[in-house]
């Protein structure tokens, strides 16, 4: 291992919004105060970030659930599996909800057969891939999809596609639209959805969201392994009641870091196969995916 690696633990993160710089600069300062030598690299998309992770250019990637699914496949295919670190409390047990106008006649998801359904970004796990899996399971396969695809490669983190779909619902351009459960309240509060004029028609099974993904060499290199453990320990020790870190946790949208788990990615993995998004080795096979 190079001497550079001895001194710094390097994290990759996707710049889905300007606040990402504020977040990781804040964490960098915090890690430095904990005597942990940390740096970060920003990527414009999760695909390049994962490829960099596999090469060991970064030691960890702050990955979307879809990026985890790909990294896990890539690592397995290379015979050097990736491992994982913590996740946010707010990453666990999410659902996506299918929203319709309150006065619409739909009473069950099957009523949407043949109708216009709005999805978020093409690569959004929460507003496209997991909902597609859910609809397939509910035998809703014949409909007119409308994908509000913006900022490809960011896996819908920006929520812009979900918002556009919600706006389209309000002007009857679509009959229903998918969004992450917490965005239903967010969009109702900020006016994208008119409060009281919509209702939830269906929801997906629960799933998990972002997770720190460790490079394949982290589990094989004792020094890197120790670094990754230290990184994890510092995160798990962060307390929301600590004034030095509360603003960072608020920006990143969590109350506490929790030990990671991969049990919440099964639905998405199925969706990825069903939609032929990545193959079993983690190659991108979806021709329409632009990033």
């Amino acid at each position: 291992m190079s001497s550079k690696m001895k001194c710094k633990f390097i994290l990759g993160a996707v710049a889905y919004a300007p606040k990402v710089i504020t977040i990781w600069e804040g964490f960098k300062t915090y890690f430095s105060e904990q005597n942990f030598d940390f740096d970060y690299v920003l990527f414009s998309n999760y695909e390049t970030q994962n490829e960099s992770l596999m090469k060991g250019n970064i030691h960890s990637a702050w990955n979307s659930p879809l990026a985890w699914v790909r990294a896990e496949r890539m690592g397995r295919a290379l015979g050097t599996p990736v491992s994982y670190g913590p996740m946010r409390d707010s990453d666990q047990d999410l659902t996506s909800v299918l929203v319709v106008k309150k006065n619409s006649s739909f009473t069950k998801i099957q009523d949407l057969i043949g109708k216009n359904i709005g999805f978020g970004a093409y690569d959004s796990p929460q507003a496209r891939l997991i909902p597609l899996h859910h609809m397939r399971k509910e035998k809703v396969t014949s409909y007119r999809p409308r994908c509000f695809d913006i900022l490809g490669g960011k896996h819908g983190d920006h929520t812009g596609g979900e918002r556009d779909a919600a706006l389209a619902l309000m002007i009857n351009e679509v009959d229903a639209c998918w969004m992450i459960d917490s965005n239903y309240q967010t969009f109702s509060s900020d006016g994208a959805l008119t409060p009281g004029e919509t209702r939830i028609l269906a929801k997906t099974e629960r799933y998990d969201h972002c997770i720190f993904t460790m490079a394949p060499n982290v589990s094989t290199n004792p020094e890197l392994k120790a670094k990754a453990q230290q990184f994890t320990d510092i995160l798990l020790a962060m307390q929301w009641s600590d004034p030095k870190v509360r603003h960072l946790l608020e920006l990143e949208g969590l109350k506490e870091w929790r030990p990671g788990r991969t049990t919440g990615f099964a639905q998405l993995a199925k969706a990825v196969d069903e939609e032929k998004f990545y193959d079993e080795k983690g190659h991108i096979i979806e021709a329409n995916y632009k990033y």
Partner: protein
Amino acid sequence: MKPITNIEINIENLGFDSGAHLLVKHGLGQISAFDKIEITGQSPEWAAQAAAWCRQHGHDFHTLENNRAVITKCSDKKQRWDRSSATSSEVLKSPSLTLGLAARGAQVEIGGPEFQFKLNKKSEVWSTNSAELYQQAITAQWNANTAIDWSQPQQHSNLLENAVVQLMTYMIENENAALIVPARFLGQLHPHFRETQALLAIQIADEARHIDVFNRRIELYGKSPALSTAGGQASLKTLLDEQDFGVAEFLLSVLGEGTFVDLLQFIHRFAPDIATKQFCLLAAKDESRHVSFGMSHLLEKLKTNPEFKFQLKRSVLARYESLISTSGLNEEVFDALIILASGKMNPEAVASGFKEVQLLLQEMKDGRRVRLERLGFTNSEAIEISSLHTRNFM
């Protein structure tokens, strides 16, 4: 089925897109950390919405049978108000800068920004009677449109009118200083000292009103502003340059505005028109309040820090030395005062007017001496400091 909690909330048909979270929040407010409330509702997929809300707020959420769910309140450590500094409403000697703009006594969340309020010590800014003076100021506010009779036609000579206009011109620049000095300190004052804040704010409003009426008086009979001198402005600039709040209060309010009260009363006495008589009297009352605050503040400050007296004395000396090469009082202003008191341009009247102005100067000097003695200066110190005060009055 036996309820598993004491508190049950039925959000009925209210969704979390329409405010259902308030009912839940209210319920959680009545229980301790790790206690539970039971919730039920009828709106479509209310549980998915409730789960998302709970996840965002750190509470555990579990669905039960029969369209019910249980929320377990999160640890105090995840509450926004845990470890918050619950300050009492009493005035602190040295309030933390992170109390920021919060109401005094408010619970202030940790992790907020640190404000740069330079005036953050009670001893630097406080006066026990601030609140009382503020109440007096509120009651004594006057409206220049209704309190002043602007309708009287000019019945006096142009000579007298020119004298009044020169005095108004001079007073406007003085009042500009009297507005800007507290305004600058107001921006540096920790809002925790809200009584001082309110008093400075209303003092600024007083000065703005004075500037307005002096300007209106200049224009009343068709005149334009008269002469502003370099010496006068140099004297006033020393007030704006003063960085210490206590010293500035001393120079501006105790010495300057105190002297100005005498000047306003003099103009009230000899003014040739009703409007000038009226507003000079009202402005003098306002200025007296400003003097009262300066005196009270300094008396309290000197009680805890008697050495501050020497700083005050040095400040007058330094100001005197910096202004020694300037002309002092605008000669035109001095002459305008004599003309005003004379009423006419003949030797007998001018002699009388001149004598009145000499008496005014003596009154101003005596007034300063009395206030200085009240602050604890000896008689000889007070006479010395009073005589070194700027010849520009303010």
